[in-house]
């Protein structure tokens, strides 16, 4: 049988339509499309795709079931390794993970593994989750701090191993960056809520609105629990440190996205939290968070939105898919440009900025060509909203309150390969140890730490 060289396309909302709503852009496969795409998989004897998956999903096995139309069995196989497939099927950078290793990718396009994962997960969500078998807790008590991708994964796995797990979340709703960071049109919040409920159904008890380091301390948790996992994420927004940065109308991406996503600022005044988006919006940085911010700004009424980035297109850290989506929606790219200062009006509101053009020099320590300012290239630009999306650092709140936990110069919690920190019985993973990385990497870290915590707990008997 001849194998189609291209992935089965996924239907998407057309750009001119989707910027008028908040609904998801890619619409998912139908059963026929999923079976057609699954049929492209060669079912390699020595599959390489699994090595590319941080949580080691048995990819050929679930795809083989999809091919036969055994959808229930497909999702069961995925969930042996991955508690959050509807999320991973949407936000994983599969092009640098599983799909990068797919042998079909050598000649044509790889199997659309993430689309198939999404299909299997969505089908189960629509149908109602299979009842999970709750093991009887062994009496070991584990606290998981932070309910983002790392915490949810660690909590779910530990519960399945038979431990009694309490999941702490500082915000009022669980999900971490999945709730406050990733937009509705990329990851609908109902899906996050469903996936979190699934983790709870495995026997995890959620305590939201508890700030570990404030409401309770690590010392108190250490007395109450046999082990602790910290997955408190990259919650510290970086700023540009240029004049005028604190003017009204200038947001960190964290603030902007939290107002819009978690607090549902897009539905103001039906929801109480306001967000202000003007007519001319500049977003600084060119990662996924920048694309998310720029695309939200358009949906919230901006007439023109620019991604302002100091390097060139080639160096943009965002996924190609996100850049393409942004471009289709008419986000403009002002590359090789840095802002020098912001100007405000008499009310302290941002009205413009002074920028400078850059050129690329020799590669720097990151391997990307270093941007160098071009003298005399300064120019003025009118803006009324700015969103700073140049990265986030590890959330310092818990480490600051807990000197026993060693951090490095960048504030990341120091861990060994098992995720063990300098505090006995305390493990950490995700962005708090990696800096801002991806959802799936955080999940991988949560998974490894869960295994290590289980070994640690069992070894104590």
């Amino acid at each position, binding site marked *: 049988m001849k194998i189609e060289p291209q992935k089965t396309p996924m239907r998407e909302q057309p750009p001119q339509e989707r910027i008028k709503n908040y609904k998801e852009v890619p619409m998912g496969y139908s059963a026929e499309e999923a079976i057609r795409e699954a049929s492209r998989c060669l079912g390699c004897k020595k599959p390489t795709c699994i090595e590319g998956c941080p949580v080691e999903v048995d990819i050929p096995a679930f795809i083989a079931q999809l091919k036969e139309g055994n959808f229930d069995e497909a999702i069961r196989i995925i969930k042996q390794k991955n508690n959050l497939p509807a999320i991973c099927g949407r936000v994983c950078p599969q092009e640098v993970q599983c799909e990068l290793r797919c042998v079909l990718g050598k000649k044509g396009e790889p199997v659309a593994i993430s689309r198939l994962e999404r299909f299997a997960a969505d089908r189960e969500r629509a149908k109602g989750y299979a009842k999970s078998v709750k093991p009887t807790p062994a009496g070991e008590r584990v606290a998981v701090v932070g309910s983002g991708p790392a915490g949810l994964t660690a909590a779910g796995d530990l519960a399945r191993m038979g431990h009694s797990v309490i999941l702490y979340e500082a915000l009022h709703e669980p999900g971490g960056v999945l709730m406050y960071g990733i937009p509705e049109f990329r990851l609908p919040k109902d899906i996050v809520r469903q996936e979190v409920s699934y983790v709870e159904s495995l026997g995890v008890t959620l305590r939201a609105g508890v*700030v570990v380091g404030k409401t309770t301390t690590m010392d108190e948790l250490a007395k109450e629990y046999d082990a602790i996992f910290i997955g408190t994420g990259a919650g510290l*927004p970086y700023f540009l440190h240029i004049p005028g940065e604190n003017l009204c109308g200038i947001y960190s991406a964290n*603030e902007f996205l939290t107002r819009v996503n978690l*607090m549902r600022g897009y539905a103001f005044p039906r929801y109480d939290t306001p967000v202000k988006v003007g007519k001319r919006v500049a977003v600084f940085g060119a990662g996924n968070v920048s694309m998310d911010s720029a695309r939200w700004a358009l949906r919230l009424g901006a007439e023109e939105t620019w991604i302002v980035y100091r390097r060139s297109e080639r160096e943009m850290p965002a996924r190609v898919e996100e850049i393409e989506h942004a471009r289709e929606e008419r986000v403009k790219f002002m590359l090789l440009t840095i802002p020098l200062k912001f100007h405000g009006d008499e009310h302290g*509101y941002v009205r413009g900025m002074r920028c400078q053009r850059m050129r690329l020099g020799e590669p720097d320590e990151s391997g990307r060509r270093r941007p160098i300012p071009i003298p005399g290239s300064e120019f003025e630009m009118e803006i009324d909203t700015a969103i700073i999306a140049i990265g986030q650092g590890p959330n310092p709140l818990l480490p600051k309150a807990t000197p026993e936990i060693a951090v490095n110069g960048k504030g990341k919690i120091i861990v060994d390969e098992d995720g063990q920190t300098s505090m006995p019985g305390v493990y950490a993973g995700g962005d708090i140890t990696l800096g801002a990385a991806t959802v799936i990497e955080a999940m991988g870290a949560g998974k490894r730490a869960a295994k290590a915590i289980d070994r640690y707990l069992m070894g104590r008997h």
Partner: protein
Amino acid sequence: MYEIVAKSLIAPEIKLFRVRAPLVAEKAKPGNFVVVRVDERGERIPLTIADWDPSEGTITLVVQEVGVTTLKLGKLDVGDSLLNCIGPLGNPSRIERFGTVVCVGGGVGIPPVYPIARALKKVGNHVISIIGAKTADLLIFERGMREASDEIFITTDDGSYGRRGFVSGVLAELLSQRRIDRVIAIGPAIMMKVVAEATRPYKIETIASLNSIMVDGTGMCGACRVSVGGETKFTCVDGPEFDAHQVDFDLLMARLNMYKDKEQEALTAYREGR
């Protein structure tokens, strides 16, 4: 859920709530705040903890009805609950034996200054309080402040009670007459700015507790950023108390006004029942 166990109207449009929040009550210290959300559609707002009782597991919050969130809160009765009450957040006030300390409280800034004054007196400071309001009926926490202070001065803008004028007037007199070791000011931004200017020539350490707009209250968003000594700080995790002589109050005031139009829009929608 955080049950309201007591509620009273202590001045026109100013309500006091005792809320069951045992974990917060156990950890609360003078100067701390909580982030509150009233209902599913609610905004997260910071409120300073005015008092707490660990044995009863309650905290006291004082709320002036100015926007949708505080109006919704004001409608809640004993037996109702807040959806979220997260804290205690922020750094606690520095409580040490400084000598003579002046505690300045303006309007709804009086309840937040009350536990600080009380704690300062308890460790042996001579506490002089200056509290003020627009009118006599808006003056709150007088009895508590009397108990927490060695001396007390009261002002009203219209002279309907105490001395006519502003708290800063009394402060200026005291500064010219007495040796003062420390000043703590909590109230409207403009009041704190005037207090800072009054003490600056005397080089007296002066602390202001800032009431910036916040979202998460845990250092994650930077909505509450302020400029202190030319450096950007987050009120929620670096404050809320800062050296008042270093604070850029004009920036604080501008940022406090950032959502004025949206607040009005929300109020209109709320009143029309949308």
